[in-house]
């Protein structure tokens, strides 16, 4: 009796669950949210940008054109330096540190204070790109 009631209720619960396709998130909004999340996780972060597979800026802290141009230059130089596409770039200077990561066709570029922990930065960047790629493939633009 109880099992029957539970089964009936459970069916009801699932009936009212929102379908993934009905909760669409625009890729730009998702990217902005991902960037904000990266800022919350990484206290050393000064600024960051997320680029799509074509190199266009999906979200950035500041001037989108500058981020697009300068990120493209960094990635182009990095690819040329090793003779193959670099998956991760880490440049540490006296003025700050630059991280770039490619994952699932997306690219995240971040600038931090000096001595930011590289492994954590790359982990956080990979994490937001993975989530963003998932969002784009399931609910974003379809």
């Amino acid at each position, binding site marked *: 009796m109880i099992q029957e009631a539970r089964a009936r209720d459970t069916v009801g619960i699932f009936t009212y669950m929102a379908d993934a396709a009905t909760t669409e998130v625009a890729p730009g909004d998702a990217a902005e949210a991902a960037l904000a999340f990266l800022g919350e996780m990484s206290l050393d972060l*000064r600024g960051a940008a997320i680029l799509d597979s074509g190199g266009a800026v999906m979200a950035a802290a500041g001037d989108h054109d500058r981020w697009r141009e300068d990120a493209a230059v960094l990635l182009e130089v990095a690819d040329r*330096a090793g003779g193959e596409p*670099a998956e991760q770039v880490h440049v540490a200077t006296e003025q700050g540190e630059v991280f770039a990561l490619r994952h699932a066709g997306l690219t995240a570029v971040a*600038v931090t204070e000096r001595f930011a922990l590289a492994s954590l930065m790359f982990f956080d960047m990979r994490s937001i790109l993975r989530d963003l790629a998932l969002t784009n493939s399931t609910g974003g633009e379809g």
Partner: protein
Amino acid sequence: MPPKPHRVLLDRVSGYADEAAAYMRRRRIARRPFARLYYATGRSADHADDSTSGAELFVAAGRLIEVAGKRPKG
């Protein structure tokens, strides 16, 4: 007379904290700028700042640092 157990624990934690602080101090003093690339195959490569590729990477990184500006307050 043996020390109290909590004293041993505190000493041990303080010791680890001191080690970590010393490591961070040495890292700040000794660390030089570098450019490091990682590839999907697991390979990584350092590029010295006096090499052509290293210099280009530093210039490109400098431009991005300029774009990002200073860390927002608060």
